[in-house]
């Protein structure tokens, strides 16, 4: 046996691949070649070391961070090719949107109070069916994935792939949980993405919503519901961190206006925060954050 073969034979022996004859050759070489004997001894110690290399423990919270990030990024990275529908409402009309938003949110609050425990139960996740049931205030058209568009009633089950569209000139509010409501301005179309439920409580843990066109207001009590909704557009994903905010979409541009708290914005390769009183304008290649003008401020 050549010295150059001995180490490969030893490695093969670790895999149980050596024949008895090859074993004999290797043992004989080891006894007669001092240099190889040392090398082979080190190789055996190296193999012993490898058996003791511990499996790494995953950093705390990594799984949750992955789920959240993938959730947020999954919409951003899926580029759409179809032409955007034209917007009817100007994105700059924040004052009227804020007024409508506040009115609709208050109406949903009244619905919740009047329906009490029954409504509360209806809007939470059913652990058996895994269906999100939302309360609707205003005129909303609902189109299930692959189904026909129809007017939504006051209480509707919502599943991944469903589309929601405002059906009148007035803003309409959809309460997804008792602490999370979205308001669709006129001519707004959103699509529901992945919905994930908390394993322990059976309540919705994360809800992804894509703004296809128009302007979507979001009101989430993150003191109770920490960051359940992820709003996506072609340019970014926006995640609340304690907030009232709105997302407007025009072809190639996403505007995010934050009224209270802040939102985390995920764009491909970068994450940034937009604080209360600020507005972010996001295009495919850049984003600019500026203070919003008083007449654009979202009011409750």
């Amino acid at each position, binding site marked *: 046996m050549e010295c150059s073969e001995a180490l*490969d034979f030893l*490695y093969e022996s670790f895999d149980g691949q050596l024949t008895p004859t090859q074993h004999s050759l290797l043992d004989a070489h080891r006894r007669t070649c001092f240099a190889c004997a040392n090398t082979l001894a*080190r190789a055996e110690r*190296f193999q012993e070391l490898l058996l003791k290399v511990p499996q790494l423990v*995953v*950093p705390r919270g*990594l*799984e949750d961070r992955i*789920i959240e990030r*993938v959730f947020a990024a999954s919409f951003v990275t899926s580029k759409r090719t179809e032409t955007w529908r034209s917007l009817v409402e100007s994105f700059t009309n924040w004052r009227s949107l804020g007024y409508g938003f506040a009115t609709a949110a208050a109406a949903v609050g009244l619905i919740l109070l009047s329906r009490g425990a029954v409504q509360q139960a209806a809007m939470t996740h059913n652990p058996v069916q895994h269906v999100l049931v939302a309360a609707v205030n205003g005129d909303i058209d609902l189109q299930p994935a692959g189904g026909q568009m129809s007017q939504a009633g006051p209480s509707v089950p919502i599943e991944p792939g469903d589309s929601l569209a405002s059906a009148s000139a007035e803003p309409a509010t959809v309460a997804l949980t008792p602490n999370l409501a979205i308001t669709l301005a006129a001519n707004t179309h959103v699509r529901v993405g992945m919905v994930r439920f908390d394993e322990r409580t059976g309540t919705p843990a994360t809800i992804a919503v894509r703004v296809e066109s128009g302007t979507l207001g979001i009101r989430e009590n993150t003191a109770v519901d920490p960051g359940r909704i992820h709003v996506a557009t072609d340019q970014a994903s926006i995640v609340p961190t304690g907030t009232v905010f709105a997302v407007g979409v025009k072809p190639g541009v996403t505007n995010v206006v934050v009224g209270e708290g802040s939102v985390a914005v995920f764009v491909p390769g970068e994450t940034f925060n937009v604080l209360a009183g600020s507005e972010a304008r996001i295009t495919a290649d850049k984003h600019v954050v500026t203070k919003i003008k008083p007449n654009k401020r979202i009011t409750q």
Partner: protein
Amino acid sequence: MKRIAKGDGDAFADLVRRYTRMLYNVAYRYNASAAEDLVQESFLRAFQHAGTFSGRSKVSSWLYRICVNVCLTHMGRASLPTSDIDDIPEAEMTAPITDSPEKRVEGRETFKALEDGLRLLPSQERMVFILRELQGLAYSEISSILGITEQAARTNLHRAKRRLQSWLSPLLTA
């Protein structure tokens, strides 16, 4: 995987919880500083391509393949210069020692030296070594994941071991 392809968030969360540790171990050994990003990118691709999973291979093999591609692609994109163990002067070809001999073999220093040595290996040798010696995969599975023959996997592993053994030789001396 069919449920994930249909947008089932619970199924995706289950997948992440079940396989994060497996992919993290591969990604960390391959590139510790980017491990979280590599695992995240792997799961994002798994989510986006869940519909292409045919069921012919194990889910773990499919995820390994995605993670390996992400790692290798990341290495190709990385702007930081990387060293090849062959380019290092012989005087620097061994891991530095600071611990006492009795602490060496099973001590942190040895594992750290192993990780340092791993990063000096060529990409494919490094990945074969990780999959075979640290993850315990069969040659047939490594062959399928990396798209190389079993013999090529063996050859890569032996080269990696020779280099690492040389790198760690001060720590392996009795």
